[in-house]
């Protein structure tokens, strides 16, 4: 069985499986995501206000410290195994905030520590974060160069 036959067979099989799976509850999913994502952002806003009012930070320092604290929380909760439990129910609500980025760095680092500190922990740390940094630097620098070329800045 090769080529088109196989494709058809796979397609039929997937349709067969889908006919038994319960329909995904899109709406409920989104509501849950909305609340978890909104809550994480509200916590971020809370940290921001505390840093601004109580510690007198402003501008880049304020934004940087806020995300550092959130990343710390993300890594800490990942370490405790709490974050993955939140993520199971929250979907994108726990992936999209910066704590999800922290989770995607800390989780493989912990998991692959057994394979050694260099090819395990350090290399696998960037399985998900690596692409973000690669495309982030490429696109961010591109924006900078475009602004430089056009003399907009």
């Amino acid at each position: 069985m090769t080529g088109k036959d196989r494709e058809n067979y796979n397609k039929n099989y997937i349709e067969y499986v889908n006919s038994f799976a319960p329909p995904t509850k899109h709406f409920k999913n989104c509501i849950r995501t909305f609340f978890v994502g909104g809550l994480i952002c509200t916590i971020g806003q809370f940290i921001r206000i505390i840093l601004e009012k109580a510690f007198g930070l402003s501008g880049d320092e304020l934004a940087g410290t806020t995300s550092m604290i959130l990343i710390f929380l993300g890594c800490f909760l990942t370490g405790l195994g709490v974050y993955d439990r939140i993520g199971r129910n929250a979907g994108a609500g726990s992936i999209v905030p910066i704590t999800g980025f922290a989770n995607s760095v800390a989780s493989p680092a912990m998991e692959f520590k057994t394979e050694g500190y260099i090819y395990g922990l350090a290399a696998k740390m960037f399985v998900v974060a690596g692409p973000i940094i690669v495309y982030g630097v490429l696109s961010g620098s591109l924006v900078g160069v475009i602004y430089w070329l056009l003399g907009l800045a």
Partner: protein
Amino acid sequence: MFEEYAEILIGFIKAFAVGGLICAIAQVVINFTDLTAGKILVIFMLAGVVLQGLGVYQYLVDFAGAGATVPICGFGYLLANGGIRGAENGLFGALTGALSSASAGISAAVIFAFLAALVFKAKSKKN
């Protein structure tokens, strides 16, 4: 005094609404396309870069505060903003500005993830 508290409270509500909405949009995309978490993160980060490159995302940040900076598009916003600000100081600044503005986030992620991996043991995915 009362007005100040009201302003803070409204800030929370805005952050909640905008942050939740961005995550909900991501969830809708996941529901209809089955993209993995890594791809969603890259797409939303790039969306932040493009929107800030066009100068739009700044309005959302001014409006919603952490509601716009905490989701991963805020990371893209930071990168693009660094590039734009660096461009004022010539080509070198334009090329280095993006990563240097993101260094707080990346450094924190590397340091805290490393510490977490040292301190904690990986839990099995099943429980």
